[in-house]
C-alpha cells in the first residue's frame, strides 16, 4: 500500500489481538480450553495443529462467526464482545474461498466496498490496486466459475485486502492447492504480508507452511495451546513430545536426571552418555526420568576414518531413498528404539548397504529435553 514505505519496520510491539482465557464449550466438549495469547501489530501469526485442535474455532471467534463461552477477545484495544462479524475490523480468506459465483472477479472484490459508498473512481482504483497486489490485473471481468483454484484463492485474498482490515484471517487458505502451487503461494503470501503490513493470522495443519511463513506459531492440541514461539524455536526446542512429533521426525531418547538447576539439566542416557542441556521453560519434573529428542538431520554419518568430538556407533537396519536425501534407520546398542537419520546424498548415503556398521556425529546442543 502506498501509504506505508516498505523500508519501515512494520512489526511493532503493540498488541493487535489479545485473547484472554478463551474457552468455547459445546455441552461437555471443550473445543477451546482456556486459551490466552497476544498477537502483535504487523505480525504473521500461525495457529498450527491437527484437525479438531480448536484452531479454526479460535479463528472464527476472532472473525465473529462464533462467540467464546468465557474469556475475552479484543482487536486493536477494542473488546469484540457483542460486535457482530460485519462490524469487526477483520477480514477472512475462507478455506473454500467462498467466491460469489453469480458475480465476476471485479464485483467480488468490490463487494465489501459497495457499503462504504465510495465515489465510483475511487472504488475502481481500490479494486484495481487489490487485483494488482495479487497479480490478477486484467482478469476483472472473468466469472468465478472460469477461474483456476489458485486464481480463486487470489480473488478471495484481494476481496479481503481491499477492505484494508486491521487483521487478515486465513483459514487453511492453501489446503486445496496442489503441492507446487502451494509452495509458490507460501512465498507470495509472506511477501504480500510484508508489503501491506497488515497483521495476518493463519490457520493450518501443515507444519511446513507454518514454519515457512510465520513470525510466530502457536501449536495447539485438543483445544489447548501447547507452545507459542518462533518457527525456529518451535522446531528446535519443542516443549513436549506431541509438539516435537507434529513438527516433523524426532528421535526420542530416555534419560535419567543427574542434576537439575535453574536453567539446565544434566542427564544420563544409554546411547549418548552424559548430556548437559537447557531446561525447557515449562519443564515439570516427573520423578527421575526425562525425555531427550534429536532431529534426524542433526545426526551425521561419519565417513571412513573421520572422527567427531561426540559420536555414537550403530548398525544400519533400513535404508529409504527420497531423491535428494536418504533415510537411514540405525540400531544403537543400549537404545530401545533405533535412530532415524536423514542424510543428504552428496557423499553417497544412498549407497550404504543395510547391515553396515557406522558411526554418527552429533552436537549435544541438538539433544533437547522435553516433557512427555
Amino acid at each position, binding site marked *: 500500500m502506498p501509504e506505508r514505505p516498505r523500508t519501515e519496520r512494520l512489526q511493532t510491539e503493540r498488541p493487535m489481538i489479545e485473547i484472554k482465557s478463551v474457552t468455547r464449550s459445546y455441552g461437555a466438549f471443550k473445543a477451546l480450553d482456556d486459551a490466552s495469547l497476544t498477537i502483535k501489530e504487523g505480525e504473521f501469526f500461525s495457529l498450527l495443529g491437527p484437525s479438531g485442535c480448536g484452531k479454526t474455532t479460535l479463528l472464527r471467534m476472532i472473525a465473529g462467526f462464533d462467540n467464546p463461552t468465557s474469556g475475552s477477545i479484543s482487536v486493536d484495544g477494542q473488546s469484540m464482545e457483542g460486535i*457482530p*462479524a*460485519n462490524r469487526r475490523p477483520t477480514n477472512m480468506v475462507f478455506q473454500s474461498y467462498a467466491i460469489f459465483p453469480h458475480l465476476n472477479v471485479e464485483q467480488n472484490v468490490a463487494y465489501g466496498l459497495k457499503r462504504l459508498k465510495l465515489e465510483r473512481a475511487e472504488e475502481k482504483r481500490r479494486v484495481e490496486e487489490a487485483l494488482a497486489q495479487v497479480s490478477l490485473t486484467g482478469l476483472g471481468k472473468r466469472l468465478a466459475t472460469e477461474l483456476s*483454484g489458485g486464481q480463486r484463492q487470489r480473488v478471495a485474498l484481494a476481496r479481503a485486502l481491499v477492505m484494508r482490515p486491521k487483521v487478515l484471517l486465513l483459514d487453511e487458505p492453501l489446503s486445496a492447492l496442489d503441492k507446487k502451487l502451494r509452495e509458490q503461494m507460501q512465498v507470495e503470501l509472506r511477501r504480500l504480508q510484508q508489503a501491506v503490513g497488515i497483521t495476518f493470522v493463519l*490457520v493450518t*495443519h501443515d507444519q511446513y507452511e507454518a514454519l515457512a511463513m510465520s513470525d510466530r506459531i502457536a501449536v495447539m492440541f485438543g483445544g489447548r495451546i501447547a507452545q507459542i514461539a518462533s518457527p525456529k524455536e518451535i522446531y528446535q526446542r519443542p516443549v513436549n513430545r506431541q509438539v516435537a512429533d507434529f513438527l516433523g521426525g524426532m528421535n526420542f531418547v530416555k534419560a535419567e536426571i543427574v542434576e537439575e538447576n535453574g536453567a539446565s539439566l544434566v542427564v544420563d542416557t544409554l546411547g549418548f552418555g552424559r548430556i548437559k542441556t537447557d531446561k525447557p521453560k515449562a519443564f515439570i519434573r516427573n520423578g527421575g526420568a526425562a525425555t531427550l529428542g534429536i532431529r534426524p538431520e542433526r545426526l551425521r554419518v561419519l565417513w571412513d576414518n573421520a572422527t567427531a568430538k561426540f559420536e555414537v556407533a550403530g548398525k544400519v537396519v533400513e535404508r529409504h531413498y527420497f531423491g535428494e536425501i536418504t533415510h537411514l534407520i540405525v540400531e544403537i546398542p543400549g537404545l530401545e528404539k533405533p535412530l532415524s537419520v536423514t542424510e543428504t546424498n552428496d557423499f553417497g548415503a544412498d549407497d550404504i548397504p543395510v547391515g553396515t556398521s557406522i558411526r554418527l556425529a552429533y552436537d549435544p546442543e541438538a539433544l533437547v529435553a522435553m516433557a512427555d
Partner: protein
Amino acid sequence: MTAMRRFLANGWLSAYAFLYVVFLYLPVIFLPIFSVNTAATPKFPLSGFTLKWYEDLPRTPALLDAAWNSLVVGVSAAILSTVLGILAARSITRYRYPGRRAINGLIMAPLVLPEIIVAISLLLVILQLGLSLSLFTVVLGHVLVCIPYSMTVLTAGFEGFDRSLEEASADLGESAFGTFRRVTLPMVAPAIISSLLVCFTISLDEFLIAFFLTGTEATLPIYIWGQLRFASKLPGVLALGTLLLAASFLLMTIAEILRRRAAKRTQNEGGLYA
C-alpha cells in the same frame, strides 16, 4: 466376430430404444395432427388442413371461464407450494435435527400415494370442516400434490449452497438482510422460479383432485372432460389439448433449464470444512 456381435447388440438396442420412444410419444403426436384436420372425427386418411378448431376456441365463453379458473388456481397453488417448499427445503438442507429424514419422507409421500385416495380423503376432510367446495379448496388440494415437486426442485437448488458464502458476505460488512438480498436470493432465484413453473404446470394439468374438490367452477381439465361427451366437440378438445401440451412442455423446459443453472451455481468447487 466380436465386432459383428457388438454391432448386432447395438442394432437391437437401437431398435428397442426407438420403439420405446415411439410408444411414449406416438399418442401425443396424434393430438396436434388431428387438431388441424378438417374432419370432425379423428381418423386416417386426413381430409385437409384447417385452423378453424383453434379459431373457435376464444369464441367459447365456458372455455374462457375454465381457462381463467385454471390460471387463478395454478398461480395460487404455485406461489403457496413454493413458499412452503422454500421453508421446508431450507430447513432440510441447512439444519441437522432428529427426524429430519422422516419429515422429508413424509413431505415427499404424496408423490406416490394414489391420487384418487388423496382426493377422496381431502373431500371428506373438507366436508367435515364445513368448508364449501370452491376454487379455494382446489388450490388446497393442488398445494398438497405440488409440494413434493417443489421440494425436489428447491432442495436441489439449496443443497450444496456453501454456507461460507453468507459468512463471507457478513465478513465483508454486509448486514443479514443485505446478505439475503445480495447473495442468498440471487443464488437461489433460479430454483425458486423453476419451482413456480413446475407447480403451475402440475396444477394446470391436474384433473382428479380438481374434479372432486371444485364446486360449480370448472378448471380446464374438467372442461375438457365435460366436452368429451359430445362427439362434435372433439376437434375443439384436441386443439385445446394441443395448446395445453405445448404450454406444459415449454414451461417444464424453462423450469429444467433454470433448475440446472441453479444446481450448477450453488455447486461448491473447493469446499472442505475443517
